[in-house]
């Protein structure tokens, strides 16, 4: 799988404003390094997460979806 080694996936990350989004901010403050593959969309609460968004993201062509409350 030599091409896979080059493959850099695009991942849609839906983060809850009060929890995971805050953790992401704190990771920044602490300069914790992680791969740049995630694209963050801030949502007010995981309750707002509609399956529609997940389907739309896959349809748009992302390689993965991560929902974190």
């Amino acid at each position: 799988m030599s091409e896979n080694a080059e493959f850099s996936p695009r991942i849609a990350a839906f983060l809850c404003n009060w929890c995971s989004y805050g953790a992401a901010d704190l990771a920044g403050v602490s300069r914790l390094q992680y791969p740049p593959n995630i694209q963050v969309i801030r949502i007010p609460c995981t309750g707002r997460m509609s399956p529609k968004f997940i389907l739309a993201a896959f349809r748009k062509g992302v390689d993965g979806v991560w929902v974190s409350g």
Partner: protein
Amino acid sequence: MADIAGDEGDFTVKVVTHPRYVDTSKCIACGACTPKCPAKVSNDYNEGLDKRKAIYVRYAQAVPLKYGIDPAKCIKLTKGKCGNCEKQCPTGAVNYEDTETTRDIQVGSVIISAGFKPFDPSAYVQYSYSKYKNVVTALEMERILAASGPWMGHLVRPSDEKEPKKIAWLQCVGSRDVNTCDHPYCSSVCCMYAIKEAAIAKEHSHSGLDAAIFFMDMRTFGKDFEKYYEKAKTSGVRFIRSRIHTITEQPDKSLMIEYATEDGQAKTEVFDMVVLSHGLEVAKSSIELANKLGIELKSTQFVKTTSFAPVSSNRPGVYVCGALAGPKDIPLSVVEASAAACAAAGKLSSARGTLAQTKEVPQAVDVRGEVPKVGVFVCSCGINIASMVDVKAVVDYAKTLPFVEFVENNLFSCSQDTQDKMAQTIKEKGLNRVVVAACTPRTHEPLFQETLQAAGLNKYLFDMANIRNQDSWVHAAEPEKATEKAKDLVRMAVAKVALLQPLNEVKLSVNPAAMVIGGGVAGMNAALELAGQGFTTHLVERDAQLGGNARLLRITAQGEEVQPYLDGLAKKVMDNPLITTHLATSLKDVEGFVGNFKTTLAGPAGETVVEHGGAIIAIGGQEYQPSEYMYGQDPRVMTHLQIDAAMMNGELDAKKVNSAVFIQCVGSREPERPYCSKVCCTHSVESALHLKEHNPDCQVVIIYRDMRTFAERELLYKEARAKGVLFVRYDVNQKPVVKKDGDKLTVTVRDHILGRDLLIDADLVGLASAIVSHKNTELAQMFKVPLDEDGWFLEAHQKLRPVDFATDGVFMAGLAHYPKPLEEAVAQALAAVSRAVTVLSSAEMSLSGTVAFIDQRKCVGCGVCWTVCPYQAITQDDKGLAVVNEALCKGCGTCVASCRSGAPNLRGFTTQDVMAQIEAML
């Protein structure tokens, strides 16, 4: 604070500001200074377990998030050399010339909340804290377990940084001990935090940690504490009833503990690590401050207050709260804080609003229907963003995006001058949407929203692209990818912002009247304070007279007589022109929401409707009616309240009682009531002391499971033992037995120390009967507030919002929340008033614009949304369709995600907004 002059209502306080050597108005907390600082200093935040620099911020979430220089450790300030941080600082905030300043401040009241100092166990020879590396304090253990601690939350012991497999916690270090440290009191919180640390350490452990807690009495008396204790037992935490006398270090730095079991056997056990559960004490500086201000302290050095005025010091206008006025946990500290705020404000209500400032906001221009004209401001954040992200490339890219009218790069977007310039640009270029690509909206959205408002734009026409915290700072090794990601984030933000519509913040008028439900000690205090601050108050009491459970109480733990106080309180309530008392009345119906409640009362004169802006629930609790220990079968078996009443009305003559037995935990800590009733241990000790006082020859035996005379009540327990009251512990599986033998009443109990049964003849058997809730589900439903499993009202947050509900405008106080002593009920009453006044004192309140709305053309009235709504903000209208009450909606969006026909939507986070971001993602 150096000194106070003047009197209540008009104090002049001298305040000394110590130099920080960093200008907080310039510091942007970028952290560039710290890596270059050559001075390494023991990190007091991590209890000295690791190092920090001389220029530092106490912790990553510190407020204000501004650096400061430790003058004792800074090489420039001590030796005149270095100056590295000044060179590194991009904003010129470092100022080595900073000096101490003194100023006088005029205030009406002073609240002292100087807190406590964790007891320093260095002086204890038997624990060898300063000698052995693997003996740590509980606060050090907190830092070891914390993700922000020296080992990032990995459970390791200090000597070799290896994971311990066995840890022992030793209780009562610096508490309940007059021999070594002169602290006779119980510190109240250590039992619970030790269990918590043991449970968390077990979670962090990879090898199934063996955690053992060595204790004298387990004092888990607060709300849900007993359940926590039981859970820890089930999860394998070992509890050993013994006070440790010797620790010896082994060659591998492990620690051997020697202890004696309850039946007198000597045992030894080796642990990898020992945690000392150290208590709370008053700091020397606080004692000095109190002495200087003329504030009276108790023998324990905590500030003296009374049960009836638990947050007032002896000096009028000076209030205290938190651990300075006695060892206590966080919820009670928060309660007292609000109570102190209430008391401090009570005397100043004539000057309310005279000094507080409100901001003027210009009328926003209507941008609906206009073509979006987006302004993008890309921040360099000094070098925080610009060193990793090619800011210029991001600016050029942003110019190519649809609807973008103007793009600009700023060095510091958050600085005041940039803010002013930004507002100017918005007006000049006619921008109607704004994106700031900078740090995080969680800290800076409100600031930029103010700038929009200042420029006459609705503040919801705004979004941020988080290119610092979630980009430049975390992808430092990949600048190209970080730049690409910044472009992606800007594109997504622009796509969203173009769709945003101005949102209105609904303004609600607030009816400045309050209702207090329950006319006991908590309810009466709440009503009096509300009236004292000028609010019309309705006090509703189910009984025909005021007073509640306190009518049957003799004295408080501090020895104050309750009845005279209660009579005075009731008289003050009846005489207060602002308080309308509704006796023999109950609630029938509650309509409305915060600011505008409409409550129907049913009383002797029929039904009346009362309008009010807020409500305080203080319905109290009741004494459990025992079915055990021959209660009701022999008049000599009595509950606490019966004994108190009989002592007060003379039916029980203490001089004539020759043998009394008190049985603890009657109905408490049982499977059907898995909680501790908190007050009964102290109550039995009070009654025992009363009997001993009137008849020193009386034999008094208290049969208990754990003596929970928490905080300074421990002194009463000590006094009782000194006066010859006998304490015998029983096991829950081997309860005492009360029998009638002819005319004789006998109590049999297994003595664990002697290993045999004791038989006691008794003239009086006192049952420490539990406090049970009224389980008033009707009232809970009327106000849309929850009850817990045991029927207590459930607060919004057990630590930080102990008298609030998740429902706005409704608060609680007293036993309705959980069993508690009188002074805590009074403190809660004042706290509830303080919280209620934050609502009642504003003529109108703005609600967030981020609320749900329903497109009724799509709604079929299926009811899914009002079922899932966690705030009961959705109801059915007369057509059977859903409507959102914006006053209750918190903007979580759960309704939107649950609807199958797409009728609800969330303003600011509409389905279209999120879809636009998804579309713009790649």
